[in-house]
């Protein structure tokens, strides 16, 4: 419950933030804090320095391009995303954010935090993978934009390296999306989740079944083809107190179909 000693800085510019992160191996970005502070309470992880991103206007804001692309600042909170008129261009974003935790967490928690944490039970990694989102990373060496496959690397591990920050998430235009999950209590932690997008090619991303979202492109959006694609993925999901590996494997099939059905209805 009580954190270890930590140093704190609140930079007023992105450049300053990157400098602070690069200067100290033990420095970590503090975004919404809805995960990191709990990790620090448990003393499961104790950064030397917290670099508070909450003062950086450069990381806020949502822009809707003429082509329907959304550029979402990494420090956008779930509440801000849900309330954004721009983000309504891709309604699944607000719909899924509304299922994350509770209003207090949504008021502080950020899109960037959710994806950079890359906890296998998080909602946004599979969702954004299904939508074909791209992730812009800024560091001392410059800026680069990577795909979801290149971004999500392992449990709690992403392409954001030391001295770097995720600055924006770019979501392409589209509308036929669906999301389905079985959770611990209503809107609770995901036991298995599935996101689907039917913009052109049918794409499904499964959450909670592997270290990173498992992306599938079934031959068609037909239920049998979807189930086939899930089976062919040869999932080896984790077993824990909430679900066995078999149960997760089974849910993955069911939820993939449901996510596609919701995408079709949307």
């Amino acid at each position: 419950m009580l954190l270890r000693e930590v140093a704190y800085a609140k930079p007023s510019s992105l450049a300053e933030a990157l400098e602070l992160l690069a200067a100290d191996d033990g420095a970590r970005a503090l975004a919404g804090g809805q995960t990191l502070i709990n990790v620090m309470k448990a003393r499961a992880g104790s950064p030397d320095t917290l670099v508070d991103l909450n003062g950086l206007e450069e990381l806020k804001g949502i822009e809707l391009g003429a082509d329907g692309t959304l550029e979402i600042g990494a420090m956008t909170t779930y509440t801000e995303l849900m309330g954004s008129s721009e983000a309504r261009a891709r309604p699944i974003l607000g719909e899924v954010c509304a299922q994350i935790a509770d209003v207090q967490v949504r008021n502080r928690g950020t899109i960037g935090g959710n994806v950079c944490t890359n906890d296998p039970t998080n909602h946004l990694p599979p969702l954004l993978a299904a939508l074909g989102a791209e992730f812009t990373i800024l560091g001392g060496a410059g800026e680069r934009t990577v795909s979801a496959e290149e971004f999500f690397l392992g449990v709690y591990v992403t392409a954001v390296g030391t001295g770097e920050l995720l600055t924006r998430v770019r979501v392409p235009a589209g509308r036929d999306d669906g999301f389905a999950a079985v959770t611990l209590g209503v809107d609770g932690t995901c036991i298995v989740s599935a996101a689907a997008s039917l913009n052109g090619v049918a794409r499904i991303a499964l959450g909670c079944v592997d270290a990173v979202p498992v992306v599938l492109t079934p031959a068609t959006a037909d239920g049998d083809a979807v189930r086939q694609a899930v089976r062919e993925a040869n999932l080896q999901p984790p077993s824990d107190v909430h679900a066995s590996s078999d149960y997760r494997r089974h849910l993955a099939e069911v939820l993939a179909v449901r996510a596609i059905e919701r995408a079709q209805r949307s």
Partner: protein
Amino acid sequence: MASSAVSTERTISVTVNGTTYEREVEARKLLIHFVRDDLDLTGSHIGCDTGNCGACSMIVDGTLVKSCMMLAVQADGATIETVEGLAAGDELNALQQSFSAHHALQCGYCTPGMLMSATALLRENPHPSDDEIKKALQGNICRCTGYWNIFEAVKAAAE
């Protein structure tokens, strides 16, 4: 001290329920501990250590947060409202009275956080539906009441 300076301690200025406090705090101190231990405002409570229970809920710069997931240093310059600021002197506000009238509290431990969440809801949405009330209180755990009376109390206060 420049805000970008790196330090394990800093002096912060926080306004809580209309009173401004200036204190030196360790960077690691959680906002809930600062309010309870440094400012002696013990109305907000702690019920868990994973950010799930909501007993620590307060309104910071107009936003409902769980103060166990914020550092005190992050509240530098902020305006905070806690349960102690709801009543006007001796007079309980409508929400507080409604909680009592509807038996929406038993042990009272979750109540301060519950009241702040309800306050935040009614400010944004003066006439919430039943579902909106439930959604707004989802982050506040109660083990005594089962929530049903709390829903009634918030609904009645909204009317």
